[in-house]
């Protein structure tokens, strides 16, 4: 028991914030998409493709920030594709998203073999360097938890706040929400429903792309097969748990990040077989969904909007 208690440290919370980062990014992405009435089950594949693209571009350019940029673009491109299929061609959201997920798994594994001759993992690349925030890092406990991270962790915190402001405190946000809640009324009010949907689903993919970039460039410094491990789906659960609100989604992501960090430490401890520990985040996700969703009302009915 002493050993079990030993892992509950400040470091665990810092790790929770780290592991919450990819989930929170994707979760914000989910919010932008669902707020305009498009379910984005493809977050998982967008993250994975971006994680790969980030490493590939860093590998050839030697600059991890170019990698992050490429990851964001890759996510945005897949977002555009998802929007094209679901908005323009009125395709089924889940089918399109699932197609993107399978594509990502196949494409990244294929390209990994073409580029590095290995299906399992890429060669190591230079990742993003951690930074310390002056003053903040000197605060006891809190400083240890949030004082020193890769820049993407801070970007995630900024994006969470920014998303809230954009969605709920600006006219743009009002338009976005109107498109999801009542497209016909939004159209009558002169809002370009289709353009708004396209843009938001692209932003959704870009945010998921940042999550993927964090996994490969801010965490492991390489690309590994299927490295997202269902985090795109966990992010959707976080979005629902957080009632489609940025701060709520962040809170839920932190919970899942905690489960992830705990899981890693428990594995290192070796008290239980790894398979049982590895299943914890997924069981937690199901439990959370089962526990809270009754009260969760989605911001849209997700029906395609067809102009009269």
């Amino acid at each position, binding site marked *: 028991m002493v050993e079990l208690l030993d892992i509950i440290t400040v470091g665990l919370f810092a790790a929770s914030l780290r592991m919450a980062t990819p989930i929170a990014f994707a979760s914000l992405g989910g919010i932008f998409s669902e707020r305009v009435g498009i379910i984005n*089950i493809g977050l998982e594949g967008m993250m994975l493709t971006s994680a790969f693209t980030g490493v590939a571009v860093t590998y050839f350019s030697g600059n991890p920030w170019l990698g992050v940029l490429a990851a964001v673009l890759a996510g945005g491109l897949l977002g555009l*594709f998802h929007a094209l*299929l*679901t908005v*323009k*061609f*009125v*395709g*089924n959201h*889940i*089918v*399109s998203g*699932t*197609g*993107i*997920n*399978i*594509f*990502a*798994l*196949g*494409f990244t*594994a*294929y*390209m990994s*073999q*073409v580029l590095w001759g290995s*299906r399992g993992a890429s060669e190591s690349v230079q990742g993003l360097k951690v930074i310390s925030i002056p003053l903040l890092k000197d605060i006891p406990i809190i400083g240890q938890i949030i004082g020193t991270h890769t820049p993407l962790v801070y970007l995630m915190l900024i994006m969470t706040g920014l998303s809230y402001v954009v969605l709920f405190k600006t006219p743009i946000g009002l338009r976005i929400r109107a498109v999801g809640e009542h497209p016909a009324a939004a159209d009558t009010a002169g809002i370009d429903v289709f353009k708004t949907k396209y843009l938001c689903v692209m932003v959704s993919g870009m945010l998921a792309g940042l999550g993927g970039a964090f996994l490969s460039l801010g965490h492991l410094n390489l690309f590994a097969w299927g490295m997202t*491990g*269902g985090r795109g*789906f*966990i992010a*959707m*659960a976080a979005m*629902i748990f957080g009632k489609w609100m940025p701060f709520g989604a962040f809170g839920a992501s932190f919970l899942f990040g905690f489960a992830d960090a705990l899981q890693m430490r428990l594995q290192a401890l070796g008290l239980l*077989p790894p*398979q*049982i520990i*590895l*299943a914890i985040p*997924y*069981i937690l*996700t*199901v439990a959370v*969904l*089962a*526990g809270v*969703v*009754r009260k*969760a009302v989605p911001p849209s009915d997700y029906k395609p909007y067809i102009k009269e």
Partner: protein
Amino acid sequence: MAEKTREPYLEIKELLRRFFGRMELELREILPQIIAILAAFLVGAIVLLVTGYSPLEAYGALIRGAFGDVFGIGQTFTQATPIIFTALAFLFAFKSGLFNIGAEGQLLVGGFAAALVGISFDGLPSIVHIPMALIAGALAGGMWGFIPAILKAKLGAHEVITTMMLSYVAFYMTGYLVNYPYKAPGMVSQTPPIAPSAELPRILQPTQLSASILIAIVLAGLTQYTLQKTTFGYEVRATGLNPGAAESGGISTKREMILALVISGAMAGLGGAGEVMGVHRRFIEGFSPGYGWDGLAVALVGGLNPAGVLLAAVLFGALRSGGMTMTRVTGVPLDIVYILQALVILFVAAPMFIKYLLKKGGVKW
């Protein structure tokens, strides 16, 4: 006079129609699917070209590998078998309006349960042992479908997320069981072999094709019959088409959804049992290369119709069996198969997209 000149096959067709409902595949209906497949192979060819492989050589090796000799054909149908089960699983849940994207996990728990029954009993006659193991597989898969079903019906938890998460849980749970309590001595993570009395017979020696494919074909017929010709099937379809109207028509849509997802899980579980009892004769960790995902693609390409599923499953089985030959001969990474599969799904996802392409190409349709 007209009666007498009727050709016999028409009568068979009529009989089949009466029994199963409308199941003939008209060209007009399957045209989008055919175009989707062709488009996927075209985009796949571009991927191959860009990455320095010859599409002609790769596809040529794939086709030769899948259909070139008895072994290839046997392997194609062997690979098609579990896909038929998972495709029917996706289809059945889909008809009730649910997305069961967790067939992979249901297949794994079904396979493990069948292996457990196969190992645990000795000296039973096959006629008892085989059905017991199959039923265990179906029950385990059904149970794995019941969890998301009840969570959806009672609590509204989105089945897309829960079925997916439970797939991961199934993967790790069976992984634990096969690495610890039920691990056979040796390096490989696998259970001991099942008793010979639980083995499904191989029907095309020397390939691994087993009687599981016969079960799959029967299941496809049963699915079609149930959906088209029974009250239950009607209620399931009504639930999927318009839950509000179904509910006011006196159908308990929650009950239908639960039943549909349990049956869906049971189908995938039965597929897993078939793999364990017919192909591997034990549970091997990671034996499924993603049959659950194949199932989804096959159900969609098959036009969400059991007859279409049988045809499409052969195509995807060919991709898997021919893919191995392709990798061996040309060195193209096997993952091109996933890329092709995903492209087919994406092209089928939006029928309007295909229509748009056809219109652009000047084809009237």
